[in-house]
């Protein structure tokens, strides 16, 4: 017990959480649920990546589905045509998407607000058309099939042979945890603070001496690299890539996940990715109504909770805190609401 107390309850909770997450495959015997959980993990990576640029830097992109696609196609091409394994395609894809992200960011981030949205939209469409029409390399509308699984891994006590969906789970979970830790470190660094400053007030940030354009481009590059990694994992997990997966709808889906979860929040990213994936899978029972209900839910979410789930949670937490504060200071009148810039829940 002494040990546990020393460790601190917060860390203990984290430890239990991680162990519980690792135990999930033992508890779920239905491979379909495992498949959905793995899909959620891939989406979490994507959402974390997009959130870096949308939630933390305040630049809206609806072209991130293309980075996802580039990652997936690079993995597919290098693994099927050159026979490279997952551990080689992953860094190649991350590097390539980062470079393309840098170029796109360098050109696009000179634009602001809706013009940037249009530019990223155009980029996403161009990349989709490339996937569709560069038949010799991308297989055109047929896409690329028979992408190999990652090589089997042996950890002594347990083995991952990647023949069933449960085997992918630890690998994907590992990448998600790494991404979460990296995001946390990045956001709390000076660079991350500079990004949030740009989001809250670009002019003020500039007058404080933050190199606005450079910061934005670097963040866009990192954001693209996240999507590249997610794409590689997706290709090796689904074993097939085809253009329709990475069209405009995918970009919008990721952006919706960011919005619904709550921008600028890691927990929000996890919640957004999980909820939307589960919704879209659960509605498979009614194929004709699926997109209708899905769309309706999103409209309702955006109308009533524009700050997403984390926005609601934060709103109520603040209310409770305020009430507690008022109780403490008996007799004092309700204090004036101090307006704070930013999202206020980081």
């Amino acid at each position, binding site marked *: 017990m002494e040990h546990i107390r020393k460790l601190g309850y917060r860390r203990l909770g984290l430890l239990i959480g991680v162990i519980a997450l690792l135990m999930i495959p033992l508890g779920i015997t239905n491979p379909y649920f495992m498949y959905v959980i793995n899909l959620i993990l891939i989406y979490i990576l994507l959402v974390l990546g997009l959130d870096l640029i949308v939630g933390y830097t305040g630049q809206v992109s609806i072209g991130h589905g293309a980075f996802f696609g580039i990652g997936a196609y690079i993995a597919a091409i290098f693994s099927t045509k050159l026979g490279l394994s997952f551990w080689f395609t992953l860094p190649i894809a991350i590097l390539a998407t980062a470079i393309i992200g840098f170029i796109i960011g360098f050109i696009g981030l000179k634009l602001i607000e809706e013009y940037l949205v249009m530019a990223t939209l155009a980029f996403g469409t161009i990349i989709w058309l490339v996937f569709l029409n560069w038949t010799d390399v991308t297989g055109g509308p047929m896409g690329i099939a028979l992408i190999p699984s990652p090589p089997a891994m042996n950890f002594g006590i347990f083995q991952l042979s990647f023949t069933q969906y449960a085997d992918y789970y630890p690998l994907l979970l590992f990448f998600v945890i790494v991404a979460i830790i990296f995001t946390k470190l990045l956001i709390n660094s000076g660079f991350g603070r500079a990004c949030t400053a740009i989001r809250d007030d670009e002019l003020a940030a500039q007058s404080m001496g933050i190199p606005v354009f450079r910061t934005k481009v670097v963040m866009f590059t990192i954001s693209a690299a996240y999507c590249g990694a997610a794409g590689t994992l997706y290709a090796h997990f689904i074993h097939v890539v085809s253009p329709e997966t990475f069209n405009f709808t995918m970009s919008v889906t990721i952006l919706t996940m960011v919005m619904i979860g709550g921008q600028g929040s890691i927990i929000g990213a996890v919640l957004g990715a999980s909820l939307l994936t589960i919704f879209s899978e659960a509605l498979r029972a009614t194929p004709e109504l699926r997109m209708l209900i899905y769309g309706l839910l999103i409209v309702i979410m955006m109308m009533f*909770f524009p700050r997403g789930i984390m926005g609601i949670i934060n709103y109520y937490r603040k209310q409770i805190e305020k009430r507690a504060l008022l109780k403490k200071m008996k007799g004092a009148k309700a204090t004036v609401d101090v307006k704070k810039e930013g999202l206020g829940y980081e």
Partner: protein
Amino acid sequence: MIFGKTKFNGCIAFFMALTLILAGCSSEDGSSSKAEASDKSESIRVGLQAPMTGDNAQYGQDMKNGVDLAFKKINAEGGVNGKKLELVVGDDKATPSEAVAVVNKMIMNDNVKAIIGGYNSSPTLAAQEVSKNAKALHVHMGASPEFTTLDNDYLYRIILTGQVYVPAVLKYMAEEKGIKKIASIYENTDYGITMSDSARKAAESVGVEFIATETYNPGDKNFSSQLSKIKKMKPDAVMIVGLYNEVALIAQQAKQAGLDVQFFSPDDSMYSEQLIELGGDAVENHIFASMINMEMDTEAMNEFIKLSEENNIEPEANTAIAYDAALALAKAFEEGGDSPEKVRDAMAKIQMEGTTGLIQFDEDGERSNAPMIMQVKDQKFIIIQE
């Protein structure tokens, strides 16, 4: 403040209404799943992987109708070995990733024993890996020649491949119509590409030449640039590889552009009453190869037509083909019983008369019936060569 009080109340009311709607939707499902649970052992579930939404939704619906008819017939006759057949519909949206997802769900979550579909090749290519691992029979309607080379014993194709259709129709065009120069316009999908590849390969052996190839994307509405290019080449005939909506549009726009030559299609993808409805006079004389003739006077076809009239279903070619697939599958289940290996062996050895003629598969899971050549005459489909 995120929302005001009135907005908040409104939102709660909205959600309550939504919950009610959803509950209303799911209560149907709930009751049926309860019924399934009670007699789970007494039913065999079969999944349909087909495009139920999007550009190809009509084909998915046709296939669903066909399978529904077959299952109704079998269940009315007492089912398969006393077990009722039950259909689970999965929408693959004609995309590979959706197909993988939906076949996964149907096999692993809904416990289906076999898959019928898909309609398009690339989703089926992606999804057959899942059904192969689960040892579930997969009876599909894809056109790609790649299926023949796959090492999957559980995969069967209920339609003929492009390699059978294309030489037959080209031979007819060359010998009967004296065609030498052909221009082709095909849809830029796996189906269009594989069909036009087979055509180019077969062209030499029958002595015709492809002088122009143009492509379009599914959903395109304007084909004037392709058609004017084709017109300049002065072909003897134009081959359109596509589905009925595009074939009808292309034929109409060609007429308007003054391109008055023989049009033909290599297979029966456009064999639908919709073709004549949409195309009208423009599709008159259109020639195509088909594995099925809806007017044929056979026992199986008459029964199918009767069934579809009773159930108020439009008897389309795809409906009949899916109906055949469902009947063949039911027969395989009847002979194979509970073991997936035995069901597969029964399917491999199957021999039965269907609406599409004799259903029987070779070692690659392909059918080898000879296609017929058909033509649109006076707003009707007639056979011009058996």
